[in-house]
């Protein structure tokens, strides 16, 4: 196997990217929110607090690992991994630049389906963590998470159906290519604004981030499914969340912002990588901004929004898109 090494190299690279991305995402979030709330944020460890994530990581590694007495030990141990694995797997199908080296499986015909599959399996970590902790807060948090993720996954899938319809393929590379008519107007965020909006909202819900963070609503559930977790296991959950954040931002970039495309990008993978990173960063900042701005939803309203508003709108959008494509409306054929 000649390319085994290459695959290994790529895999490691993506892993490192995801992990550093996660680490510095926490720093960015804390600093930005602090600014927004007229505070300072972490600035002690290293210049501008840049080493803060490293310090925290070290601290968590050395923490004592506690298991609750009545917990189901095996599942309690398994759950954090089940949470992280799908999150990291998402990166497998995201092309981060126009060079084949930065593209693991983005050309697969089933790449979009793979994303849905991974998002679907991500529930297990949370649900099982809640269940195995043998703690009421944790259980309720876990159940809420499961229900929320299942509910919003439908609307998310449907918004992606519209994208797939536009591209005529479920391959990431084709989706990006279809957004390249030379200018920004080719981006699907322009041609599919409804799908983009639904994807953005449902992505927030899938991530259980504000304003959909009922899963870990500290006022009612302390820390939700993570209540009993500490040390490295806690760090894994934390990691899975932020990795998923980065991944979903990257997906939004691919689906709606033209991926690595940009002016003068040509065959230059450096430029592509830069464009891609900027777009992802912009998405992440929007997420942080939303968290700093919006209050939390009530649970029944959350469900109502998912089932009674987003799902029908997404369905209508699919039908409309199909209609526009069949009719050959300019910009849809």
């Amino acid at each position: 196997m000649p390319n085994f090494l290459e695959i290994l190299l790529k895999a490691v690279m993506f892993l490192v990217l995801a992990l550093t991305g996660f680490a510095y995402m926490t720093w960015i979030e804390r600093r930005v929110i602090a600014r927004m709330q007229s505070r300072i944020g972490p600035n002690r460890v290293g210049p501008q607090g840049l080493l803060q994530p490293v310090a925290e990581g070290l601290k968590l590694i050395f923490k004592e690992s506690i298991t609750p007495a009545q917990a189901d030990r095996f599942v309690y141990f398994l759950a954090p991994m089940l949470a992280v694995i799908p999150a990291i797997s998402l990166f497998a199908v995201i092309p981060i630049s126009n060079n084949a080296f930065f593209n693991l499986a983005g050309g697969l015909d089933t790449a979009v389906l793979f994303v849905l599959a991974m998002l679907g399996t991500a529930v297990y970590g949370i649900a099982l963590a809640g269940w195995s902790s043998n703690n009421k807060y944790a259980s309720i948090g876990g159940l809420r998470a499961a229900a929320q993720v299942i509910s919003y996954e439908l609307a998310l899938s449907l918004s992606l159906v519209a994208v797939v319809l536009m591209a005529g393929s479920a391959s990431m590379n084709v989706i990006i290519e279809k957004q390249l008519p030379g200018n920004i107007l080719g981006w699907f965020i322009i041609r599919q604004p409804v799908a983009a909006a639904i994807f953005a909202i449902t992505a927030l819900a899938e991530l259980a981030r504000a304003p959909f963070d009922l899963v870990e609503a500290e006022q009612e559930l302390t820390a939700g499914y993570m209540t009993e977790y500490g040390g490295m296991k806690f760090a894994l959950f934390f990691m899975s969340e932020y990795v998923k954040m980065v991944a979903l931002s990257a997906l939004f970039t691919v689906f709606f912002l033209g991926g690595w495309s940009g002016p003068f990008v040509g065959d230059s993978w450096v430029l592509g990588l830069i464009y891609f990173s900027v777009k992802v960063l912009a998405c992440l900042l929007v997420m942080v901004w939303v968290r700093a701005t919006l209050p939390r939803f009530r649970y029944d309203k959350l469900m109502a929004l998912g089932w009674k508003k987003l799902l029908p709108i997404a369905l209508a959008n699919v039908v409309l898109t199909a209609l526009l494509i069949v009719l050959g409306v300019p910009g849809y054929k």
Partner: protein
Amino acid sequence: MGSEFIVFLAVAIVAIGAAVGMALSRNALYSAMFLILNFACVAVLYLLLNAPFLAVAQVTVYTGAIMVLFVFVIMVLGAEKLPAGESRKEMAWQRPLALGLGVLLLIQAAYVVFTRVVSSSATKLIDSSPLAIGKALFGPYLFPFEVASILLLAAMVGAVVLTRKE
């Protein structure tokens, strides 16, 4: 054969182990997790069998939806560790008989496989991309497809009606 067969063997062993684990586990949640593992293995086998779309669909539908529902219900009902209760006397013969019949069925199937399966492999791989499957679904299989959609609708309504509190 070759490397593919090695992969098959490894996955098959895991799958069988998961199936046995599911059948024997006392805890329903563990059973569900074993079943998820089994489904994942089958998804890998689908990849080996040139069915990438089905593999992903398997993960999405079975693992991502059906089994989540199972886990959800088990957790909501707290039904994972129900009291065993005394087995009924009149059911005493049920277990050995079932086991015997299962073995018999397996033997029969193996016998059929080894004696009757015609060894004619297709020379070329078929196109099993999502596009091809979609075209088949909306072409010759359009009617079953629509029937399936109605079935799903009926199931949806049925589930809502069944679980609604008076």
